[in-house]
């Protein structure tokens, strides 16, 4: 998860993106979750069998730079718009997980005709419930040791995904990568905690066919939150994947890959 940096660099919108392109076929822009992404990402590997996957670290994550003016998710969205235009990507499927799903939804409401399909995996970004409710778990209060339990369906699968948190055994770059990812998540998501108060009202703007996948053991945002999120997007499909948590695509990448590909291969009409 934090061991193999992405090999390429592209500068767009003032951001030097750490990036990887894998596979052949239609363009698929993969937007990673709160723990970052690396070259060994299991879902990226599966999606690359049938698509040309472009995956970058968000500004401030991994080795992507973060200029001073990029300090909110809104800024990240514009950086990605610049990236997509710089690479001249067209007919792009957006696949975003967690905070990547938030970014994907924000990209989709912006009105660009470059994005033609949307897959959201346990996205955050929307405020549901009253002012006295917090349906999104406060991940900022977790110690590093607690991350596997909260982000995954079980501590065991979490530790497997997170290399048993054996940072002392890895090169220093891995610890730096993880620490930087955690800090940047704070910058973008501390308060309001992992949501944009305006996004819910904007979701009606999404015209692209949308699939929303949810781990039934998601402890960060529960299935009920996911159902409401999907219901706000016209025509969106909502599918629950059993036995996995918030970052379930590490735990069962085959299932997430299969369902995503089935959705992408289905006809364009809704």
């Amino acid at each position, binding site marked *: 998860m934090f061991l193999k940096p992405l090999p390429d660099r592209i500068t767009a919108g003032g951001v030097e993106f750490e990036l990887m392109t894998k596979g052949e076929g239609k363009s698929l822009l993969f937007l990673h979750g709160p723990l970052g992404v690396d070259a060994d990402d299991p879902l990226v590997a599966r999606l690359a069998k049938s698509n040309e996957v472009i995956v970058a670290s968000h500004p401030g994550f991994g080795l992507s730079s973060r200029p001073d003016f990029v300090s909110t998710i809104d800024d990240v969205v514009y950086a990605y718009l610049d990236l997509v235009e710089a690479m001249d990507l067209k007919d792009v499927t957006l696949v975003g997980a967690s905070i990547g799903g938030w970014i994907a939804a924000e990209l989709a409401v912006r009105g660009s005709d470059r994005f033609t399909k949307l897959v959201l995996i346990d996205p955050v970004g929307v405020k549901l419930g009253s002012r006295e409710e917090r349906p999104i778990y406060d991940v900022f209060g977790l110690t590093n040791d607690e991350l596997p339990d909260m982000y995954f369906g079980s501590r065991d699968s979490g530790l497997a995904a997170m290399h048993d948190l054996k940072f002392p055994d*890895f090169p220093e770059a891995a*610890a730096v990568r*993880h620490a930087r990812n*955690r800090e940047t998540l*704070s910058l973008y998501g501390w308060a309001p905690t992992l949501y944009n108060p305006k996004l819910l009202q904007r979701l009606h703007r999404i015209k692209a066919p949308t699939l929303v996948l949810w781990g039934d053991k998601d402890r960060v945002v529960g299935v009920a939150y996911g159902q409401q999120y999907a219901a706000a997007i016209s025509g969106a499909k909502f599918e629950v994947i059993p036995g996995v948590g918030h970052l379930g695509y590490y735990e069962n990448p085959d299932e997430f890959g299969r369902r995503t590909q089935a959705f992408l291969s289905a006809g364009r009409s809704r």
Partner: protein
Amino acid sequence: MRFWHFCEQSMHTAWAKIDGPTKVTVPNSFCDPKLAHEFYNRYLDEWMIADELGYDIMVNEHHASANCMSSSCTLTLAILARQTKNARLVALGIPIANRTDPYRVAEEIAMIDVISGGRFEVGLVKASPFELVLSNQNPTRIMERFWEGHDFVVKALTHVGAPFSWEGEFYQYRNVNLWPRPLQQPLPPMWMTCSSEKNARIAARLGYVCATFFNGPKTKQLFDSYKDEFLKVHGKPAPADRLGYLAISVCGHNDAQVEERYNKVKTYLDTQPRTPKGWINPPGYESVELNAGALKSGKKGRINFGLPENPTRQDMAEGGIFFAGTPDQLYKQYLDFQRKVGGYGQVLMLGQAGYLDHAETVDSMTLFAKEVAPRLREAVKNGVEAEAVAA
């Protein structure tokens, strides 16, 4: 040499009843407002006694804590501005990076300074990491917020004339107009708390008092950095009053009494780690380098104030954490520590903590004021502590 009496205004009677953290997430059902009424007024009484004994006064700020009920240091200092006569009053400190309205901070500073007759001294601080959970301000960019807040407060306090505007990144004001203006001109004396050499140098450049808490013998390097930078920037040696050090300080008439008081106060140290684990270090508060280093080494930073396991009273004193003794013993402990770190003029004393009751606190404060402070002042005046440093 100034001796500052400090107390965190705790509700220590709750500590034994609480299971787990004593701050941030601890339910406020553990706060008995009737007891709080008694404690606040007792601590204020002790500060008034400190004033009469010739101490100066230090007040801090924390939130949602059974360890410290001083949820507004300026509020406490406003009371003392009116109720004390001679003591200097230092806020150490106002957590400027947690406050969303630095204009309000400047107004409170000016009011206290004016009401006190120009006795206020202002420490602007970064604050503990878990305070961000209460203020909800972002852990990242905390120092950028701090400095913009600091710059704003200094400008507001020193500006005389028509209102000015401020269109900063973090704070925007269309009409800044400080009424009252502070009594001390151009502004009250400024302090910073420092634990890194980098920040000590920043404080030196600004000419602020550099204060450090429980930092131990390695404070020598910190103070040396300050002195080095001060000399470079201001062209003269840093006066001793530019440096401050905080430790617990308890005095008794005989060894048995010292031991009893020491044990009552030591409970304070045992309570310090009782912070919710996840809020000890919110991501972004510390630098990426520091956090990555901790992940790589598997270490959790300084443990137990750098003291050996099961520290003795002697370990505590030599470690600069807890000076406890009869007047003779305290005189020696303070002098030894002064020599160890190269001398400092602002002696910050946590003189009440834990279960030390009112009578004991007053007795300890009085004994120190009468039998230790004058000797230390004399020693420093005669350069006694400087001799050992030069050697």
